[in-house]
């Protein structure tokens, strides 16, 4: 069975004709060539595949395209505006809050959602927002510092 659905991704309407069982993650990566959203487990546990759906952070591997019909989906590729990095992206860069980079897209997406909802979060709140994003390289301290830095700018 196919899903014939229009979804809005990074501000553009995309008309899709994809297998209905395909996850949003698979569609973003394979059908829309938006590969910045990463596959880590396919079970919603590792956090690598988070996207924004109407401003809220969700694992794309747990969504089907029909779940986001009529909603605004934003991926890591859609965060920069007019060639300017989002403050969260800039902060991650400045804190070197990365090593292999595989978990970074997901973390940045959740941080963007956090700062929209809560512009001045304390450390506990930052840690909780980033908790779904597992990192094996061990950049948690830097990621928390990066979000703190970004909050300082956007507040």
């Amino acid at each position, binding site marked *: 069975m196919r899903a014939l659905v229009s979804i809005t991704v990074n501000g553009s309407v995309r008309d899709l004709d994809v*297998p209905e*069982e*395909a996850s949003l993650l*698979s569609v973003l*990566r*394979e059908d829309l*060539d*938006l*590969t*910045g*959203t*990463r*596959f*880590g*487990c*396919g*079970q919603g*546990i*590792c956090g*690598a595949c988070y996207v924004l759906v109407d401003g809220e952070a969700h694992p794309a591997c747990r969504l089907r395209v029909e779940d986001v019909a009529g909603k605004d989906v934003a*991926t*890591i*590729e859609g*965060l*920069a505006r007019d060639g300017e*990095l989002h403050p969260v*992206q*800039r902060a*991650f*860069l*400045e804190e*070197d809050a*990365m*090593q*292999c*980079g*595989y*978990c*970074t*897209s997901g973390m*940045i997406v959740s941080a963007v959602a956090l700062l929209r909802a809560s512009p001045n979060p304390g*450390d506990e709140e*930052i*840690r*909780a927002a*980033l*908790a*779904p*994003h*597992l*990192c*094996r*390289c*061990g*950049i*948690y*301290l*830097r*990621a*928390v510092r990066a979000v703190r830095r970004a909050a300082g700018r956007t507040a």
Partner: protein
Amino acid sequence: MTAPAPGSEPKPERVETRIAVARDGTVLAFSGKVEYGQGIRTGFARIVAEELHVSIDRVRVELGDTDTAPWDMGTFGSMSTAVDGAALRKAAIFAHALLLERASERLGVETAQLHSEHGIVCAADGRRVTFTELTQKNALTGEVTALPGGRGVRGPATDVTLRLEALEIVTGARRYPADVRLPGLVYGAVLHGPRIDARPESIQENSARAMPGVLAVVRDGDFCGVVAERQEQALAAIAAMHAAWRAPQQAAGAPTDLTLYARDGVDRALAGAARVHEAAYHVPHIAHAAMCPSVAVADVRDVAADLYVATQRPFGLRDEVAQALGMAIESVHIHPQAMGGMFGRGGMNDAPLEAARLSRVVGRPVRVQWTREEEFRLSPARPIVDVTIRAGLDASGRIVAWRSSSRTNPFTYGGAGDSRVLAMTSGRNAVAAYSVEAMEVMLHVQPAAIRTGAFRSLAAAPNIFAIESFMDELAAQCGQDPISFRLRHLDDPRLARVLELVHRRSRWGERERDGRALGVACAVYHGTYVAQIAEIRVPSPGSVRFERAWCAVDAGRLVHPDGARNQIEGGIQHAASCAMFEELTIADGGVATATLRDYPIAATVDAPAEIDVAFVDDPAIASTGIGEPGFVPTAAALANAIFAATGKRLRDLPLSI
């Protein structure tokens, strides 16, 4: 570009294998190492930029591509900066001298009167010639000799060079193997049994061939895979198949016993000791569990095979693919992509070989992406390590005898290897760095029930967990401060210095007054000296919080200080996760752990609030490795802190009270 003959002296390098100037003035630097987050690309770029007097954005570092890089044994062992960085520095200094020589001929001015900046060689009278002009008609060539001078890299205290991949990473533009797109790319999956070496007795394909999107079912002996138009379709087709599996026929191999260190008189010294203490430590199998599961793209045609992969051993993989496909080595091209953290997993090239086999049959580029469940079930695990230590103390609390035995599995891929290799891998850091008159260290290596292999620092972290926990136990036996006790038994001033550094920075001396539970551990790993102190808290019975850590590191001269700091912080957080939470479940001769839910790893809420890293950064000492040392002492530091907090001595990992 072939492997050196075994036992041969390293041949002098030719500058053209390391440095070239492109038409547009870009300086190209080549290394067979690969980048997986350690920051070596950035470090290498800094080295080359410094020695050629150009800005870092003029340098392009090409890593690990078997078509362009010099042969390399693989990226592991914290050797990239120490060994390859040194080779690049030497080649860059030589290249610069060669450029000045050429400019000297061109301009008719002595080299001593010339200087270069930003890729332009200038004479005092204002005449100039660019690197491009000097190399356009003939590339730099020649056998590299060691030349004096060179600027060296002095990392200032405020080092702000971003890692070169940073922008790609934060924008999502970075391309890992799963992101490679080739015309005609299709998706493959392999029918796997309960173990990587399980053999199918019979395979029922059932409806697989006829399922939506399936392009081929590939059968070749025990190998059975599917190629389909979409990933989900390949997985569904595999799920529709059924096979009966039998375990491998013979046992994996005989055990090996080695004496790593023996100095006479241990029995006599133990018999005469005022106090004897013994303890046994256990470290279970754990998983690499990197965030990027195994994945590879292979494009095999008649005349050539191109692989787009994540691997720690691109040249090894080239040989393996050539052998598996019956192709000449020259026809196989390995193109390392951006990679997820490797931690040793990338020495075993499972997905690339599977992709190559499938691509060869279907004649199209194939991507094989392992599921997370396959990654747990089939990947090599870190060996079990069991260490028993028996030591004798004299009346003054000095260690007079030490006998230890380390029992473990191979940390190498493809079997145990000879005893020198075993001592260096399964026996790494089994010999304590302390001066004890009578010491004996034994190693017993036997294959595990499951596949094992390399894991960050190999046997060092497990052995140091045992040794450094035991040192604290001995100190407690004779009522001595753990740091003073260690200092009493150290000859090496560099190890003493890092211990003293963390002592000071953590305010170790005031810990009891402040009510803080601190634990210390130290090690010398591949010439890098590292001391750590961990602070823990017990917020409620049965729970332990890792609050804070201090780490002092002497790795000689630093190349990229913030990159080094990131590696040490990362090693500590990684090690804390392994030590506090991780253990694979083994059942029926295989890994039963299937998901990240079964195998919790540390998340942000588990990370310490602060990690203080202090580097000795002595520019007079050649750089040693940074990738692994941070990982080595953490388990013991935590266990010792837990003892300080609770009086409970934990000798098994994962630590739980």
